[in-house]
């Protein structure tokens, strides 16, 4: 009780505590690996080499991280306004439709850099549209945003299934997907970025949307901490009564925050749809929306933290895939267990070590 009020220096809060949490998560993951009869250290080595050992691995890691940055930002923007948007999954899915429609209509006529801004807007608009109804229900009717956004995940999923199977499918084909976009509808790969560090991108789908994600990180930081709108969102998020006192309009801020959140989730679709597969495929989001929740939590809802957390999950995704390939006894599901442990220790148990750290800090600093 007494340690909660003690302020720790930023470097402990933002560096030491997360690293200790991560070490704990890996320690318990190691126990799991050890329990099924494999060497934890070997597993960790394979995981890290798989994710970071070669240019191609790094390319995959950053590709996954790109998606998680978008969805992490989406969750974070909503959280700053006190809204728990767990519909990023569905918003990203519908965002894919926006991006695909732009790509399908423009790819024949213009180069990618003309298509791209329209695709960004299209993806954001469709993502925002998906968030708009839950936002309106929350703002005007008080329906809980958690419930409505979950339900919209199912609604978008069904809608997209219908569209892909009945409308957007290439006639005569079996696969529920659109036609492949021409070059004018594809985002270029970032070979140059990896080769700057002497690696080769190979088959990894790291693409231009990574840079868009970084720009969005900066814009979100500006929005939250440097604009009046961000100030209003934070006030509402921390203290709705203080927001009411200050004359900050609840319904308007809820709508704006959710539209921005949905828009950011929608942009996630640029990465797999226009960057990797160059077509709209069924279930392309693949859980990235939900990972975004963990990424935002771990990253303390700050863009810099979100980038770091997204990289961590990128490493787990890519390294985990390699690991289960090299160590067949560690299956896909085992990787999910390890990811779960990371979320548990870094997110849910974030403050578990805090009292001990506070006491240690007080002893060392002699206060």
């Amino acid at each position, binding site marked *: 009780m*007494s340690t909660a*009020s003690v*302020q720790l220096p930023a470097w402990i809060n933002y560096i030491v505590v997360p690293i200790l949490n991560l070490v704990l998560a890996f320690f318990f993951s190691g126990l799991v690996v050890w329990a099924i009869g494999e060497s934890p250290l070997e597993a960790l080595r394979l995981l890290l080499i798989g994710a970071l050992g070669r240019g191609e691995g790094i390319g995959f890691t950053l590709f996954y991280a790109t998606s998680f940055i978008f969805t992490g930002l989406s969750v974070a923007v909503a959280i700053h306004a006190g809204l728990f948007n767990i519909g990023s999954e569905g918003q990203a899915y519908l965002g894919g439709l926006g991006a695909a429609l732009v790509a399908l209509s423009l790819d024949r006529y213009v180069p990618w850099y003309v298509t791209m801004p329209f695709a960004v807007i299209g993806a954001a608009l469709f993502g925002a549209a998906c968030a708009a109804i839950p936002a309106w229900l929350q703002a005007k009717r008080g329906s809980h945003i958690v419930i409505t956004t979950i339900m919209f995940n199912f609604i978008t999923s069904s809608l997209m299934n219908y569209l892909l199977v009945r409308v957007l499918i290439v006639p005569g084909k079996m696969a529920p997907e659109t036609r492949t976009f021409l070059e004018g509808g594809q985002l270029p790969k970032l070979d140059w970025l990896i080769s700057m560090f002497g690696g080769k991108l190979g088959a990894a789908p790291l693409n231009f949307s990574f840079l868009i994600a970084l720009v969005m990180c900066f814009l979100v930081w500006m929005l939250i901490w*440097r604009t*009046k709108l961000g100030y209003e969102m934070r006030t509402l998020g921390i203290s709705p009564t203080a927001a*009411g006192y200050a004359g*900050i309009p609840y319904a308007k801020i809820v709508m704006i925050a959710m539209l921005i959140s949905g828009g950011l989730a929608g942009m996630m679709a640029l990465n797999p749809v226009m960057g990797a597969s160059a077509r709209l495929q069924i279930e392309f989001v693949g859980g990235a929306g939900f990972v975004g929740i963990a990424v935002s939590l771990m990253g303390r809802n700050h863009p810099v933290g979100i980038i770091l957390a997204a990289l961590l999950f990128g490493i787990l995704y890519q390294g985990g895939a390699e690991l289960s390939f090299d160590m067949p006894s560690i299956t896909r599901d085992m990787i999910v267990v390890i990811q779960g442990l990371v979320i548990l220790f870094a997110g849910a148990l974030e403050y578990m070590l805090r009292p001990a750290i506070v006491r240690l800090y007080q002893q060392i600093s002699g206060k």
Partner: protein
Amino acid sequence: MSLDLPKEIEPAIELVGIDKKFGAVHANKNINLTVAKGSIHGVIGENGAGKSTLMSILYGFYHADQGEIRISGKPIAIRDSQAAIAAGIGMVHQHFMLVENFTVLENVMLGAEGGQLLRKGVASARKELKRLEDDYGLEVDPDAVVEELPVGSQQRVEILKALYRGAEILILDEPTGVLTPAEADHLFKVLRVLRDQGKTIILITHKLREIMAITDTVSVMRRGEMVATRKTSETTVEELAELMVGRRVLLHVEKGDANPGRVLLSVRNLTVRDARGVTMVDDVSFDVRAGEIVGIAGVAGNGQSELLEAIAGIRKPYSGEIFIDGKPVAGIGPAGLRDLGLAHIPEDRHHMGLVLKFEEYENSILGYHRDPRYGRGAMLDLDAMRKDAEEKIAKYDIRPPNPRLKTANFSGGNQQKIVVAREIERDPDVLIIGQPTRGVDIGAIEFIHKRIIDMRDAGKAVLLVSVELDEIRSLSDRILVMFAGKVVGEKTGDAGEQTLGLMMAGIAA
């Protein structure tokens, strides 16, 4: 600093060399305190003086870094509140710890049910409760649902709860904050009976008059130290106030005669209902003129909060009208009202007036953040905000003078100064204020009261709501009394306490 007790009186509780630090804050410095069995002992001190920390140590919420606690002469370790209860210490918190939709009996039994099945426990608890009520004159219906009881009775339930657990030493934390003067008198009667039956009572309060009225001995804390212990009969209010603050204090606000001008704030037939449709403000009309302070007296919960919120545009009136300088302002909302020259120091600085997680400078613009002086267009100008905050910090002596400090880490008095500075520095025409000095230390009270008088003298209209009758009486030029949502009467500023007290209880008009 302990009092020389006559040999035949045994000490109920002794604190020896209690020391407690929170990081850099030295909350309790080598505290020694002896309280005689069968006495009422007052502990006073400004906010942040360390009273609450000391009592929390006694009740097992915190652990002292050093020092010893002795109960009836025996040293004991109080690990948690269970251990405190076992040692015979009971606590009545400022905010009641009752399950509102349980009956009195159920609340008293809670945590001491006596076995897995309730039946047997209920029967014996009922008997014991009856005995306690008879012994101490604490009459409450055991089968009444707590939320339906008046506040004074709820407090009696808290006391019964402690006694039921065998408390010999009773700690009361600011017990009269929510009571009418009559209810407070009743409480004091109960406390005297308890004392006469051999219980020991520690009363924590910042109200000097209560100390004088009820305690046998009194200790004063200042900045974590126990600076003095006195027999109440041998001290004066002035001496205690000086000991608390460490310098001479003006207990009475100096103010000249009011010079009322034209009507700046006018409320006509205002009715406000809460979310459940219950009428909280009932057909209220009054005017506040330029250059006068109108005080609204009343026991908390009689519609004052809703009235303030309606005038501030936070709460929608059900019917009636509000005019600022003759303009109807219904439905304009807080932001628009600020533009019209209305400033609002809200009752609840923790939830309304401040965002505690914000840094100080962020709070110093709350409500005025759209003003171009804090940034052009959509952007915020952090440098301008901080400079503005620094000016207010200097002018209002807000401590520590650090605009980057998290607001939650300021003391209550300094938090209130942040709000007062923000609202008054906008130079509003109409200032509405709720509980300006709740939880604020004496030094800051003096300062805030002066600012309010200055506003009046500068020709502003001031509406003041407070549950502190002393505050209302010393500041107001006219006093309206609210009871059950209605204004039941108007008196001049020099009205007697008893008259107002009766009106507040709904007895006289």
